[in-house]
């Protein structure tokens, strides 16, 4: 490994997705990591354990995933950018405290390198089966932000984006990788540190005696302080008012939860990252493939084959998966005959797509139970069928 000068590993590297994600975290300014080993995410933790002592970070391997996510939240309130990584089973364990992070509006990043499930499933093989869990995994009503990379380069770039979004919206951001991208080795270019777009934490800048932990800015997000600066604030997972004090009644719940939900929903367009290819941009298509993560890359083969047979097929790649870009998908549905979604699960984001599309066009799912990527011919068959 090349330690380089300073924390950011500027240069061109040959890295797998896990290692690229670790470098992305370092480049984003993450200096606290608490995790627990689980295949296929362990390499992220291992690289961070090696790199952090060389660049001034604190790495701790906790006794379980519940401890990991709790420590990540605590460190965020101490004033550090913090992250954990896990896979499906650990992601399930973390849900309660992800809920605490949501309720207390704690910025942090949770990386899920997805594998085949449910339960212990396929520890070493890929899946995209936690997509709905990323959105609905914890109890109660809330909105989160989730991103999905399709390459090790994106595993680097989008980790930085995850930290940026978590700071801007004071919400835990789920980085939904999968084992294939995590273990795939490709060229990753890391720019110089001064060319990185790293957003700072939204610190409170007002008068000390007027500080209210949950009094929002105009965009619905409250600015933050850190422990140790004598603000004497109180943070609780109970339903709370602007002072952070628990108020147990329906009125307070309405105010508290509505703001948590609307701070994401009202800003959904600003959060959305979506990659529409030239065919989609050029106008009507016969079929539009809507995909995310590794399935989007596999679909490019099927799309090339379909185009060779004379069909006009475009690809829309979801980069932010949550909040689901339903307004954009609804618009794109008017410009095609059929939207085909391949995903390595039995139909998760497909339900969102169906809901957004309604009957504006046909929809088709190409499911896969996990363990490997799609056979492009299966996606091709769905495209050909959809074009009829």
């Amino acid at each position, binding site marked *: 490994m090349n330690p380089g000068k300073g924390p950011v590993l500027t240069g061109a590297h040959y890295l797998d997705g896990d290692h690229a994600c670790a470098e992305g975290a370092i480049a984003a300014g993450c200096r606290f990591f608490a995790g627990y080993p689980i295949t296929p995410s362990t390499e992220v933790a291992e690289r961070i354990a090696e790199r952090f002592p060389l660049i001034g970070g604190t790495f701790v391997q906790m*006794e379980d995933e519940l*401890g990991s996510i709790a420590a990540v939240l605590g460190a965020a309130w101490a004033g550090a950018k913090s992250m954990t990584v896990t896979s499906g089973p650990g992601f399930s364990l973390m849900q309660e405290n992800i809920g605490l992070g949501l309720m207390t509006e704690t910025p942090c990043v949770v990386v899920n390198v997805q594998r085949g499930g449910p339960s212990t499933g396929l520890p070493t093989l890929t899946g995209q089966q936690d997509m709905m869990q990323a959105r609905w995994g914890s109890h109660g009503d809330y909105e989160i932000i989730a991103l999905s990379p399709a390459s090790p380069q994106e595993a680097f770039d989008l980790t930085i984006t995850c930290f940026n979004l978590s700071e801007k919206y004071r919400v835990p951001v789920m980085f939904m990788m999968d084992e294939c991208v995590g273990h795939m080795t490709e060229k990753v270019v890391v720019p110089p540190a001064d060319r990185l777009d790293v957003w*700072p934490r939204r610190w409170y800048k007002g008068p000390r005696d007027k500080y209210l932990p949950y009094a929002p800015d105009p965009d619905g997000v409250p600015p933050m302080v850190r422990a140790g600066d004598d603000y004497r604030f109180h943070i609780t997972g109970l339903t709370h008012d602007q002072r952070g004090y628990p108020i147990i009644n329906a009125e307070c719940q309405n105010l508290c939860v509505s703001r948590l939900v609307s701070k994401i929903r009202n800003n959904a367009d600003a959060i959305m990252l979506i990659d529409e290819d030239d065919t989609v941009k050029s106008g009507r298509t016969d079929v539009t493939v809507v995909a995310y993560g590794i399935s989007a890359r596999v679909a490019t083969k099927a799309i090339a084959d379909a185009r060779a047979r004379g069909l006009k097929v475009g690809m829309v790649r979801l980069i932010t998966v949550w909040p689901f870009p339903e307004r954009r998908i609804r618009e794109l549905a008017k410009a095609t005959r059929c939207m085909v979604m391949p995903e390595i699960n039995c139909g998760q984001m497909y339900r969102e797509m169906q809901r957004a599309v309604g009957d504006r066009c046909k929809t088709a799912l190409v499911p896969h139970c996990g363990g490997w990527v799609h056979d492009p011919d299966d996606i091709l068959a769905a495209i050909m069928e959809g074009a009829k």
Partner: protein
Amino acid sequence: MSPGELIIERGTAGNHPMEDFLRMDRMPHIWCPTCGLGTVLTAFIAGVKESAMAREDIAVVSGIGCTGRAAGYLKFDSFHTTHGRALPYATGLKLGNPKLKVAVISGDGDIVAIGGNHLIHAARRNMDMTIICVNNFNYAMTGGQFAPTTPEGAIMTTAPYGSFEHPLNIPFLVDSCGATYVARWTALHVRQLTIAIKEALLHKGFSFIEVISPCPTVYGRRNRLGTGLDLMKFYKDHSITRNFCNTREVDIKFQQDIIVGKFVERPRPTYLDAMNEHLAKALKDKFVPYAGPMKPE
């Protein structure tokens, strides 16, 4: 006003010397009459004052339960977290900003049952934090279910015919995991408790204080033990101070003698000291120590 004249203020405002440490806008607290938790809070504030530590350097974390409400009443940077996870949350706070002294105030069920795994490892690592574990022998907030600390024979709502489970000896547990300051007092031993809290806050390493506290509304009532005052009288008659007693021998049986005292006080490098020393030795001048949390500009 002549010496000794009683001042009775019939309002709810006042100048109690500890009010600056309390969130007076949330008083009165929710704890039952004759519950020992208010006394534990008083001892905590007294211990903080005696330690002369800077107020902003202390963060308070609690879990869920009656004791878990303590963070909500204390005017420090305070965190009311999820059930059982106060210790790893406190670990994150401490490692995120090593200048903080984190005090965890939580109950026996929260720390030793659902939080048991985290307790073991925080003690093993000798994380520099202070744990005040208020032991009322049951899950009180939810109505009085038995807990891993409930003595054999006690009647609780989920043990309606009496508990037959062997209870944990908490000082023995944390001692065996490597805690470097272990003490047990009751809510009646306020002066010893105050000194213990002061020592624990100033101690470098994992300090653990178990406080036996009366729970009249559920534990006391369901076992016909009387009010909190009756339970305090029981502690007075049945507690035996044995400093540096072997922690193996301090288990508690139903309505029998309770051994209290400072059981363990020994030096051992804290997690951060051990980590920094080790990495400095392994990496020499390549080691870059943690620079601390981000600073607000």
